């Protein structure tokens, strides 16, 4: 047979055999492999009955949900309670003590005011701030979460919740990345790697920002206490303001469902999708190893990225608040310019500017707002000095500054909404780009929440003004 004939014959067989012989090959390989295994491998089946019993309880229709909620509540409680002391300590060490030392050192060297401001009050202070607020909760939350993961419990959560996520076109594992997002959105985005279906993974990445992260909880709680708690009688103030914060968090979850649904039916309609979820056997978690890896892989990487972004942003914050043209700071120019637009959203120019320049971390939004407010309305005696980030010693002092800045209950409500619905911090944006390798999806993930925030705040403000005066 000559070459031509062979090729011709091959072509003919190719048409006849069709496309699906790959499947047939795999099937044969599996069949062969399993028959070999059956003949040679003996299975002792020790742990599988225990696994079976655990699965019966943890994925049970009656106990599954309560167990899950209880475990999550414990994790959050441990994080919030456990983080207070180290956070206060770090803040004392880095912000109060070391910052003061650096200042006196630079005064000793008689460094020019400008350089001292940029480096110490700008770069150092905002990086120190981010570390002291961000590190403790993450160092508690991530190891706890990783322990649950290592034990094998988290896939069961995904299994329990998949029914809900299926309806909005997402993957059950999004429940896990979303929960992770309550700790830190950047970590939540990285965690989306566990979703192996391309479409569902993108959905999880884009909607992660709707989980109220660690950096936003304190802002929510403080604002709710000052502006929501104060409009109700004092004996229910505590409950009402906590309810307001939980309402915002739940609203975030609802937004993540709604956005997941609309993305999977519009922009992401065509992207490939395949569901499967392996439920690995339970095993005792490897305690030290887990703590080590979760500290290195999750906490430190995220923290490092945050610091890298926070330091230059600190410089910008300082410059905006200190560079003057015709005796008026840059901040004041922008605040006056953007105030009308801010007011339309129930916010003000100071808040808009704070959200722009404090993009590296949500943790420094509130200190920036306080600093800018005192700067623009000239409150005497508040803060450490011109254009330096600060926090007040008491809630009342904060409330006084904000009220002097013209804040009303509507401003409080609007900033709670806007804090939920605005662009992710720069660390998260960068992480989204790293994970998706796509400008397009990074763009969507960045601007979609802002768009939603502007719409929600705008309509809330108008309706509020019509009905509440």
């Amino acid at each position, binding site marked *: 047979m000559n070459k031509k004939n062979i090729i011709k014959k091959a072509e*003919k067989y*190719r*048409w*006849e*055999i*069709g*496309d*699906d012989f790959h*499947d047939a090959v*795999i*099937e044969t390989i*599996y*069949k062969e492999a*399993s028959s070999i295994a059956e003949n040679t491998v003996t*299975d002792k089946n020790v742990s*599988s009955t225990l696994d*079976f019993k655990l*699965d*019966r309880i943890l*994925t049970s*229709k009656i106990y*599954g*949900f309560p167990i899950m909620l209880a475990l999550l509540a414990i994790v959050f409680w441990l994080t919030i309670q456990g983080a207070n002391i180290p956070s206060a300590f770090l803040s004392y060490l880095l912000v109060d003590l070391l910052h003061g030392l650096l200042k006196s050192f630079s005064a000793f060297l008689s460094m020019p005011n400008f350089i001292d401001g940029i480096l110490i009050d700008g770069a150092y202070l905002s990086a120190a701030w981010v570390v002291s607020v961000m590190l403790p909760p993450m160092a508690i939350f991530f190891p706890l979460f990783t322990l649950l993961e290592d034990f094998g419990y988290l896939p069961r959560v995904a*299994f*329990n919740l*998949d*029914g809900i996520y*299926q309806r909005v076109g997402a993957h*059950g594992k999004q429940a896990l990345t979303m929960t992770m997002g309550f700790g830190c959105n950047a970590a939540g985005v990285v965690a989306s790697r566990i979703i*192996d*279906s391309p*479409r569902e993974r993108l959905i999880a990445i884009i909607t992660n920002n709707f989980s109220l992260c660690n950096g936003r909880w304190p802002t929510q709680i403080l604002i709710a206490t000052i502006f929501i708690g104060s409009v109700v009688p004092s004996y229910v103030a505590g409950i009402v303001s906590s309810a307001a914060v939980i309402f915002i968090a739940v609203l975030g979850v609802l937004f993540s469902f709604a956005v997941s649904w609309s993305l999977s039916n*519009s922009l992401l*309609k*065509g*992207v*490939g*999708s*395949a*569901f*499967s*979820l*392996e*439920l*690995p*056997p339970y095993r005792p978690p490897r305690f030290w190893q887990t703590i080590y890896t979760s500290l290195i892989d999750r906490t430190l990487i995220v923290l490092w990225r945050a610091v890298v972004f926070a330091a230059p942003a600190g410089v910008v914050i300082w410059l905006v608040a200190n560079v003057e043209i015709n005796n008026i700071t840059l901040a004041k120019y922008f605040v006056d310019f953007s105030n009308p637009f801010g007011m*339309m959203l129930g916010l003000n120019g100071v808040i808009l500017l704070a959200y722009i320049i404090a993009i590296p971390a949500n943790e420094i939004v509130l200190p920036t707002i306080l600093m800018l407010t005192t700067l623009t309305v000239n409150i005497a005696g508040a803060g450490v000095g011109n254009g330096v980030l600060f926090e007040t010693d008491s809630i009342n002092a904060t409330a006084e500054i904000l009220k002097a800045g013209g804040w009303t209950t509507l401003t409080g409500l609007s900033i709670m909404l806007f804090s939920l619905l605005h662009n992710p911090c720069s660390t998260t944006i960068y992480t989204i780009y790293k994970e998706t390798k796509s400008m397009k999806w990074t763009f969507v993930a960045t601007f979609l929440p802002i768009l939603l925030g502007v*719409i929600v705040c*705008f*309509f809330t*403000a*108008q*309706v509020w*003004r*019509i009905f509440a005066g």
Partner: protein
Amino acid sequence: MIQPILNLIFGITVLIILTIFLFPKYGLYAMYKKSKISKQKIYVEDSLKFLYESEYEKLSITLNQLSGYLKVKGESFKNILHRLEEMNLAEITDDNIKLTKQGSEYALRIIRTHRIWEKYLAEETSIRESEWHSEAEEKEHSLTESEVEEINKKIGNPLYDPHGDPIPTKTGELPPFIGLSFYVFAEGETVRIIHIEDQPKEIYKKIIEQNISVGAVINILKIGKDSVEIELNGKKIRLTSELIKNITLEKIKTEVYFPAGAIPLSDLEKGKNAVVLSILKSCRGQQRRRLLDFGIVPGSKISTEIESLGNDPRGYKVRGAIVALRNNTAKQILVEKV
């Protein structure tokens, strides 16, 4: 008091305008994108495709049939015909219309684009099966040749589109209309016999003796190494490999036939054991590969272990591991209880 109301009206107006512009498929932007491809081109290409597919099945087409297919009449239909002749793509004699050689080549390109795009949608995306055709109908007019080749490469030079129709090669070759052999199909599929080779005589006789004839609809029960088991009119027939070589088949686009005793995995009650019979053809691409990766292949033992609230997804034990599958996937796995 007035200002917020005005603002509210303004805000709602902006939202409505945005919706009108950006609404998927029917929004102004989507309409504008669609309108960029000329109507005339679409009609010409659709005619070529229709003529070619008819000629492939050895049917001749009258002008009336073409007009009916395109849903165009009168003056505009005449324009299309004029254009086809002018571009030397088709010849019109009396009432019949036939493709020229050039027309055939053009048509094959369109068909290739259409079928490759359908295959792409089936394998790589999660677009629903009911939408493949209409998506491809639009895409075939706008994809360039190099884009088609790129996609073709990406999905591994497929031979058949997801409906089982052959994809013309780049050089415009198609297998002669001979239909397919048994091995192209999976167990459980329903097919029609379109050709029985009458040489050599003895084998032909053996086939005829089984009451097998051209046009008969059969169910493929089992495909073995050297024999195939089929069901014809409720009767099980075993055919040896030398017989089946001479029979060619055609896919029927109907519901898949379930072999006796087979149930979809999604119907397997909790705690019950079963053996996997097959994964239906409708489960493709990534999802299918994922199942194969888990070792869900014919012959695997499988049992339903756990159910979530609402019974979707459910956890199945296969090869010692528990795998959760959604019901829409589990429906496409046929099992037999043991």
